[in-house]
C-alpha cells in the first residue's frame, strides 16, 4: 500500500495518542528513577555490611532501570515519534526512522527533536 | 537354628518363634482371646495387617520384619469409659493371669482426656500385645523381628471382633493380590473350643 491509504487518520486523535505516549514515557521514567534511587539508598548499607545482597541489589536496580523500564519507555518514545510523523503524512512502519521524526515533526515537538538529536545517527 | 541371644548377641539375630508367615495365626488368636475376655464387647471398627522394619546399628535388615496386626475401635466406642478404663483393668488382670509380663502400664493425663498404653510381652514366643487408648483406642499385636516370608506363603486368617472377613473393614487385601479366599459365614463372636494349638 502507499500514499494516503496507508494510515487513514484523524490528526487530532493521533496527536492525543502521541501526547499520552510521551506522558506515560516521562512519568514512568521519573517514577522509575525515584524507585531505583530508593533501591540504591537501601542497597548501600547492605553493601557496607559486607553482604552479597547489597551489590546484587544495586546492580539489579540499575539493570531494571536501563534495560526493562528503559526498554519500555524507549518503545513508547519510538512509537510516539512514529505516530507524530503519521499525523503529518502517511509513512509506513518500514520506512520510518528517527530522522523522519526530526524532519517531519520536529517543529511540532522541538524540545524532543533537539534533546535526542545527538543520538540520531542520521541527523 | 540361630544360637541363643546371650551367646552371640553381636553376630546373629536372636531366634524367633515364628517366621512372618507363621506369625499371623497365633497373633490373631491373641486378639480373639482378648475379645473373649472383655465383657460386653462392642466390636471393632476395622482390622489392619502391617509391618515395620527391623534395624540394627541404625541400618534396616531387609531379611527381617516385625509383623503388626491392628484392630481399632470406632471413634464413638473409643470415647466410652468401658473401652478407655474398664478394659484396661480387665486386660491387665487377664494378661497377668495368662503369664504375660506387663512392660508398660502408663496413664497419660492431658487437658481433655486420659490416655493409656498397656503393653504386655509373651515370653514363650516374643509376641507383644499393646492396648492403646488415645484419640482412638486400638489393639496392636506385634511379632517382634521375624524372618521375612514370600507373599505367597501368607495364609488368610479370618478377623475377630465383628469384622466381616474380606469386607471393607478388613484391610488386608494387599497381602492377597489374587483376592481374599472365600470364607464361610462365621459367627463373629464365636471362638475356637480351645487355643491349645495356637499358643
Amino acid at each position, binding site marked *: 500500500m502507499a500514499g494516503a491509504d496507508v494510515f*487513514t487518520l484523524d490528526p487530532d486523535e493521533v496527536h492525543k495518542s502521541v501526547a499520552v505516549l510521551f506522558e506515560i514515557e516521562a512519568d514512568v521514567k521519573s517514577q522509575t528513577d525515584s524507585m531505583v534511587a530508593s533501591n540504591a539508598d537501601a542497597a548501600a*548499607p547492605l553493601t557496607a555490611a559486607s*553482604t552479597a*545482597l547489597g551489590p546484587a541489589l544495586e546492580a539489579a536496580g540499575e539493570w531494571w532501570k536501563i534495560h526493562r523500564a528503559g526498554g519500555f519507555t524507549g518503545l513508547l518514545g519510538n512509537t510516539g515519534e512514529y505516530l507524530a510523523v503519521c499525523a503529518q503524512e502517511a509513512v509506513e512502519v518500514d520506512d520510518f526512522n528517527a530522522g523522519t521524526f526530526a524532519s517531519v515533526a520536529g517543529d511540532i515537538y522541538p524540545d524532543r527533536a533537539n534533546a535526542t538529536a545527538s543520538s540520531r545517527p542520521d541527523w | 537354628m540361630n544360637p541363643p541371644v546371650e551367646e552371640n548377641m553381636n553376630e546373629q539375630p536372636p531366634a524367633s518363634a515364628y517366621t512372618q508367615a507363621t506369625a499371623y495365626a497365633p497373633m490373631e488368636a491373641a486378639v480373639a482371646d482378648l475379645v473373649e475376655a472383655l465383657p460386653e464387647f462392642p466390636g471393632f471398627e476395622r482390622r*489392619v495387617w502391617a509391618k515395620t522394619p527391623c534395624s540394627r546399628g541404625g541400618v534396616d535388615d531387609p531379611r527381617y520384619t*516385625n509383623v503388626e496386626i491392628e484392630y481399632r475401635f470406632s471413634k464413638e466406642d473409643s470415647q466410652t469409659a468401658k473401652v478407655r478404663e474398664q478394659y484396661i483393668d480387665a486386660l491387665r488382670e487377664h494378661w497377668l493371669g495368662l503369664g504375660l509380663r506387663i512392660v508398660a502400664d502408663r496413664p497419660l493425663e492431658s487437658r481433655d482426656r486420659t490416655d493409656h498404653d498397656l503393653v504386655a510381652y509373651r515370653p514363650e514366643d516374643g509376641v507383644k500385645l499393646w492396648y492403646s487408648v488415645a484419640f482412638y483406642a486400638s489393639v496392636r499385636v506385634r511379632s517382634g523381628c521375624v524372618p521375612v516370608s514370600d507373599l505367597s506363603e501368607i495364609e488368610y486368617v479370618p478377623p475377630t471382633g465383628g469384622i466381616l472377613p474380606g469386607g471393607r473393614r478388613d484391610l488386608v487385601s494387599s497381602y492377597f493380590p489374587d483376592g481374599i479366599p472365600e470364607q464361610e459365614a462365621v459367627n463373629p463372636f464365636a471362638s475356637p473350643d480351645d487355643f491349645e494349638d495356637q499358643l
Partner: protein
Amino acid sequence: MSEMTWQQLRDLDCGAVRALGDLWKSHVETMLDQTERLRADVVEGHLSVENFESDTATQVREHITLTADRYEDDLSDYATTRIATTLHEAADAFEAEQNELKELIPLIESRDFDIEGPHKEYDVNLSGGLHQAILTLDPPQWLCDMVGITKPSGFWDWDTLKALFNSVDLYGTAIGLAGQYQDWLRAVMSRAHDADDDAAAALSEMSDNPTELPPHLGATYDDLIDDYKEGVSDEVANEARAIAEGTSGMSPEQVNQWWENLSDAEREALLEEHPEWVGPVDGIPTEYRDTANRVLLDRNIDSLDSQIAAKEQALAGMDPDSDEYERAKEELDGLKGDRSDLVRLQEHITNEDGSPKVYGITDQQYYLLGFDTEGSGKAVVSIGNPDTADNVNAYVPGTGGNLAGASGGLMDRTETMARDADNASDAETATVLWLGYDAPDSIVPEAMQSKWAEDGSKALERFTQGVRATAEGEPSNLTLTGHSYGTTMVGTAAATQGVEADNLVFIGSPGVGVDTASALGVDESNVWASTNDEDVIQYGPVHGNAPVNESFGGNTFTSDSPREKTEWWKFWEGATENHSSYWDDGSEPGEANNEISRSNQAHIVTGQEDMVR
C-alpha cells in the same frame, strides 16, 4: 559471597529491607496503572479501531499491546517475583538469625568467653580472664553451678580449694559450653550467609538470560516482530528449564509465584511436553509434580527395558571370559536392579489401570514427588497431599536408605507413621518418605562421614521451603523425623542452611552435626530425641553430642526405664549398660520403647506436644 560478620548481622536494618520490598510492590502497582492507561487511552481509545482502520493501524495497536504485555510481564517476573520477593525472604531470614544473636551474644559475654575470627568460621574460646579464674580455683558462679559445687564465700586456703574442686572438671565443663556456643554461632552465621548468597543469586541470575523486548518500529520491523513473537512462545520453556536445572537462582517461593502466573494452557503444555521440568521441582504444586513424575517413571522403565535389551544383545556377542564381558554383565545387573526397583515403586503407588493408588488404611493418595536411580537412589513419596494437609511429617531415612527401600522397609515405616498420625487426630497428616539425598551405604566408613549430610542439605532446605510455598491456606505443622543417619542429615541441614520446619524429631541418633539444640534454628522446645538410641552405644556419637543428652538442650521421650545420665561432657561413655537386645527398634523383649516412641511421635506430628512423655 557473603562476608557479613556477626556484628554486621546484628546491626542490619531488616525493617528497611522489608520496606524496600514493599516499595517495589507499590511501585509495580503504579506502573500497572500506566500500562492500563496505555491500553485504555491509546489502544482502545484515541488509536482504536473505531478511529483507524488499516493494516498499519492494526500493526501499531498490536505493537503497543505487545509493549504493554512485555512491561507487565517484567513487572511480574522481575520486579515482583524476583526483586520484591527476594527482599522479603532475605529480611525474614536475616531477622530470624538476628534474633538468635540477641539470645546468644549475651550468653557468650556473660560467661566471659571470647569470640575469635572469622578465619573461615568463628571460634568461641575461654577468655584469658576465665582461664585465670579456673587456674586459681576461683571459678565464676555459673561454672560452679554447672559442676555442682557450692562456691565458697570468704577466703579459703589453697589446699581446701583444691580438695573442694578436686573431683570436678572445670576446664572440661567450660570448654564444653564454649563448644556449644561455638556451634550455635557458626550455625547462625552459616544460615545467614546462605540466605544472603541465595538472595544475591536470585537477583544476579535474573539478568542472566533476560527475555527479549519487542523491536522498535522502523526498518525490518516485520521480520523482527515475527522473531520476537516466536521467542515469546519459547519463554516459558526456557524459564522452566532453568528452574529445573537449578540455574535460575529462584527460591521455591519464587518458583511457586512463577508457576501461579502461568496460564492453564502454559502449565498443561509444560506438563505435556516437559514433565522432567515439573516433576522434581520444589515450589510447583504437588498434584502437577505427581502427574509429571508418574509419566517420567513410566518412561524411565521403558528406557531401562531398551537398555537392558541392548546390553543383553551386546553380551551375546562377547567372549564370556573377557574383562569386557565382566564389565558388561555388571552393568546389565545394575540396569536390571534399577528396573526392578522402579517397577516395585510403580506398583506400590499405582493401580492396574494406571490411576494413582490410595493407601487404604488412611484413605490417602500416594504422591510421587521425585525419584532417581543414581547411586543408591532417591525417592520422595508422600502419603496424602502436603499442600492441603494440616500436618506434614517428612521421614528422613539413614544408612542403607535406597530406592529399593522406597517400596520396602522405608515405605513400611512411612506407612506406619501415617497410620499412627491418622489414629492420633482428626486433622489430616501427610506423611512423606524423603529420601532426597544420597544416604550412606555402610556404617563404616560412610556413616561416619558428614559429607552425605552436607551434600543433601540444600535439597532438604528447598523441600521444606517448597512445602511452605505450595501450601493452600494456612501453613501446615511441619515435622522432620530423622532416623539414625537421617538425624545427622536433618540436623546438618537445619544448622547450615536452615529448614522451615516447626518440629525436629531425632530417632536413634549418632549425633546431628551440632552439640546443642540451639544451633538448629528451631525453637528448642520443638526439638525431640528418643532415648531408644542403641546406636549411641554401638558406634559412639560420632556426629556430635547425642541429642538425648541433657546437655543438648532438646526434649527427650522418656521410656519406662530411663537410662543413667552421667557427666554430660563425657561425650563418649563407652558401653556402660548391658543390653541383651539385638534390634534397635524396641522390638526387644521386655521393653516398650517402640510403642511409647510411636505414641509420642504421633502426638508431636499432630501438634499435640502436651501429650508427649
